[in-house]
């Protein structure tokens, strides 16, 4: 009797968790499907090679926004990834139990929970208000700061799990500590560092709020990294609210491209992670 009731409970728990999982996935699939369904018809050659058409004219593309997103992300990465790696390296290999280290650790952890708009307003205050115009550099700065905690955490964690056998092997060869840290520990942990950097890149690819304060938008090809610059994110925001049927459709198309970028990065992450396990680290 008790056996039966236990089996029943088991069954209920299983079906319940399955049902709730499906429920949780529905919105996700819904979003993906509507982005694909609505976006696919917007995509054509002009769409991915041209710049937006002037208001009232039809056609045009979003190439400048694709380019802008990639440029700003690249600049953010050039700044955010090395700083993140160095921070993670410090936390894993040099930090002690002292107050300074724990302050750094706490700020890295709480940093990742700060809403992105705060980084936008910060970059706006210290850069845009000083140079007195919107600039892609400020956007890269805001997004770069956002990458730091993600990359730092990934670096710290993957360096920490590197076996002390590796450190001892390098010590026994008379290799100085910084060389050991960079060439051996970071070298062995590189899979995790690459993964963290890619995820940070994917994360900032979706951020819009910091860009509204900084890079703003442009209908033209960028003229310089210190100028306003179009991005996919802000383009989606502007076009979706424009009220023009065609622009709304283009916003869907841009959304599809953005989703594809993020999915592509996640696939690369999967491949990198799989290789890491193959090496047996």
């Amino acid at each position, binding site marked *: 009797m008790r056996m039966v009731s236990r089996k029943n409970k088991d069954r209920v728990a299983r079906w319940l968790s399955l049902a709730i999982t499906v429920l949780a996935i529905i919105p996700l699939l819904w979003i993906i499907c509507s982005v694909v369904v609505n976006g696919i018809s917007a995509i054509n050659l002009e769409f991915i090679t041209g710049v937006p058409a002037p208001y009232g004219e039809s056609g045009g593309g979003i190439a400048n926004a694709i380019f802008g997103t990639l440029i700003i992300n690249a600049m953010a990465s050039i700044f955010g990834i090395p700083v993140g790696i160095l921070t993670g390296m410090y936390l894993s290999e040099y930090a002690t139990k002292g107050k300074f280290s724990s302050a750094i650790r706490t700020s890295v952890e709480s940093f990742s929970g700060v809403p992105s708009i705060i980084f936008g307003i910060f970059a706006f205050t210290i850069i845009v208000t000083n140079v007195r115009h919107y600039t892609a550099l400020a956007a890269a700065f805001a997004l770069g700061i956002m990458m730091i905690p993600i990359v730092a955490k990934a670096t710290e964690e993957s360096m920490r799990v590197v076996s002390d056998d590796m450190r*001892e*092997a390098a010590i026994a*060869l008379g*290799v100085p500590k910084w060389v050991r840290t960079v060439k051996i520990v970071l070298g062995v942990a590189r899979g995790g560092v690459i993964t963290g950097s890619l995820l940070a890149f994917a994360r900032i690819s979706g951020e819009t709020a910091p860009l509204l304060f900084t890079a703003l938008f442009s209908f033209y090809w960028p003229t310089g990294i210190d100028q306003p610059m179009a991005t996919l994110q802000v383009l989606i925001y502007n076009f979706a609210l424009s009220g023009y049927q065609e622009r709304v459709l283009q916003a869907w198309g841009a959304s599809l491209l953005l989703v594809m970028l993020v999915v592509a990065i996640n696939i690369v992450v999967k491949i990198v992670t799989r290789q890491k396990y193959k*090496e047996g680290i």
Partner: protein
Amino acid sequence: MDNCTYEKLDISGLDAWFGDKQALKGVSLRIKPKTVTAVIGPSGCGKSTFIRCINRMHELTPGNRVSGVVLLDGVDIYKSVDSMDVRRKVGMVFQKPNPFPNMSISDNVVAGLKLIGAASKKELEAVAEENLKAVGLWKEVENDLKKSGASLSGGQQQRLCIARALAMRPEIILMDEPTSALDPASTAKIEDLVKTLKAETTVIIITHNVQQAARISDMTAFFYLGELIEYGETRTIFESPKSPLTERYITGRFG
């Protein structure tokens, strides 16, 4: 002084602590060049601490302390030499094979030289080949030099680690139970290798296996509770040990 010049290693009054706990008590011994010395004793007797004092790795853990004199070729390694230089002169092979998984087989061999930037690319290739030959691994990996060091079997990895230590041309090679993680066939290969190594260098090897000590060593040191109980020629230690403790240990009655 007359003895110093011909002892490779002259250790006197060596004490070592882990925090408050004393792990080595007044160890003194002399090791001649181009010999194999086996260090035996039950777990926790200070064998590993002892050899880690010879390449100054014991002091790396905060709280650990060493006192006493360790002369390598007559030079005090705790007073007159930088710890990094000590470790370049005194190589070490660990219990668990630990090749660098992010490096190829040939890069593993020359890792020490490469990381301190001590040789050109051409020289490194020659050094890699020479040392892979010295450990009998060359024929097995000749065509896989660019593969990861982690792709080898356990026994091959350990020989790779020995080649890595040899590539630094060390005065002394310390081995901390190098065969305890290996199968019998790989163990036999390493034992043969140790015997050939003494043509070039001086080997100090910890082993849990007293038969292994008898097979490969010229001298044997028996440690118990942090003290050097007995030290002498291996044959003497095994045939007529002076201390009853040594006898009980090597006949397998404790440990």
